[in-house]
């Protein structure tokens, strides 16, 4: 019995130590990437390549997600609002929800799934095939070359994707609201200016930028910490997606609490 308790305590201690070690490594990695972000040479081409990959190549999936999210949301709000005869408020409700929450969070989840996985897989496979060592031997900092363009690319792409999400989502809601539910087009749009303000759009943009940073830093970190071969790359990719998505959802809560106070 005593031995079992001792073993459990030992296991708990090992877990705590591993957790602290992991947090320490992640903090160290974060500070290094931050340092190399401001160190020349600035790799504009790599940054634009990443913006193209994360932004442009994600537009189709963002288009689909946002159009259907806006349309479904308009339907659901209509069902609720009709009961109290307030269905003319569908426009502002859907748009506010999209601007403040749905656009940044759902774009974040899409990018975490699509690009976070790609970052971890690309960097992870470069690590196991010694390509990162090859960069270092040439005197090129691998964080600056591989991580910084991806992190900045995600930070710049995600607010743009979130903006597109907002516009297309609004379009989806407008289509359902005016053509299916048959709310007057003028009523649908005119209520927007009564309830919406720029602070709400700013909240969404700030959130998307923060999510972009988190997805970038988690995706690249998982790539750099890959060990072993193909199995390690698979594990790193999986972790990048899981942690990226969890982080977006958890941080969204704290950001919302903070931003509603200041905006």
């Amino acid at each position, binding site marked *: 019995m005593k031995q079992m308790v001792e073993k459990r305590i030992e296991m708990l201690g090992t877990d705590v130590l591993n957790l602290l070690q992991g947090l320490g490594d992640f903090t160290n990695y974060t500070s290094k990437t931050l340092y190399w972000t401001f160190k020349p040479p600035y790799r504009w081409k790599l940054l634009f390549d990443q913006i193209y990959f994360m932004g442009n190549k994600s537009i189709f999936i963002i288009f689909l997600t946002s159009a259907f999210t806006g349309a479904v949301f308009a339907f659901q709000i209509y069902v609720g609002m009709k009961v109290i005869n307030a269905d003319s408020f569908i426009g502002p409700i859907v748009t506010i929800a999209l601007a403040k929450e749905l656009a940044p969070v759902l774009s974040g989840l899409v990018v975490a799934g699509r690009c976070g996985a790609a970052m971890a897989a690309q960097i992870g*496979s*470069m690590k196991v*095939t*010694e*390509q990162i*060592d*090859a960069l*270092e*031997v*040439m*005197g*090129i*900092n691998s964080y600056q070359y591989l991580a910084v363009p991806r992190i900045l690319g995600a930070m710049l792409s995600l607010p743009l994707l979130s903006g597109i999400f907002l516009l297309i989502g609004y379009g989806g809601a407008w289509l359902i609201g005016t053509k299916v539910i048959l709310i007057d087009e003028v009523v649908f749009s005119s209520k927007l200016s009564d309830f919406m303000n720029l602070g709400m759009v700013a909240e969404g943009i700030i959130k998307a930028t923060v999510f972009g940073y988190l997805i970038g830093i988690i995706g690249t970190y998982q790539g750099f910490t890959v060990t072993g071969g193909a199995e390690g790359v698979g594990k790193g990719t999986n972790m990048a997606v899981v942690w990226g998505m969890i982080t977006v959802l958890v941080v969204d809560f704290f950001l919302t609490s903070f931003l509603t106070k200041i905006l």
Partner: protein
Amino acid sequence: MTDGKYSIEFKNLVKKFGDTTVLDDISFGIHKDKITTVLGFSGAGKTTLMKHILGLAMPTSGEVIVLGTSITKISELELREFRRNFGMVFQYAALFDFLTSFENVAFPLREFTTMNEEEIKVKVMGLLKSVGLAPEAATRLPSELSGGMRKRVGLARGLALDPHIMLYDEPTSGLDPITTHMVYDLMRETQKENVKCGFTSVIISHDIHATLKYSDYIVFMEKGKVVEHLDVESFKKSENPVIRRFLEL
């Protein structure tokens, strides 16, 4: 400072990972203008030793002096600059898989020189030719090349910046015997062609037969220690039982 005889010197080098001593008080010099092979069984500390030459690992104690510079005493930025003195061929070539052979060889030139695209093209095609690759190979991705061709592209990339020290990490592992000898011939030719510029080759290997044929000096390591450091002829005559066992394999 080095006395000019050696390109690389290790002085009482110790490397520990936790309680495990991987390099145990190593002191020797690698001769300038020669091919030196570091031999030993797996886990002898060969790769860790090479990482210390490149400054990719830092010693627990002791010193590594490369081309007269103590790389354990310079800053990280200075070390990055200093690494341009090295060329390296990795075990599996480590070519960037998103770039063609041409782009791989051009990569260090674009990063570190002010050469224009026309000059880069001339230099890259010349390097690819010098390692025995046909011009058609230039447009191929690493996944479209054989193991031997990848090693050649890796060698061309390593030579692009005219390094003073060329490092080869298990350069022939995974290659058939004929390609193995082709790669060693290429390494020997590279050494001959560049020797006037003070060129030193260091090979990490456990291929004893090729090593005896192509090297000038051999360093034999076991359990983190240097057992012998001799020229090839003396090495063949060594009475050390571990080396005798290795030679009889």
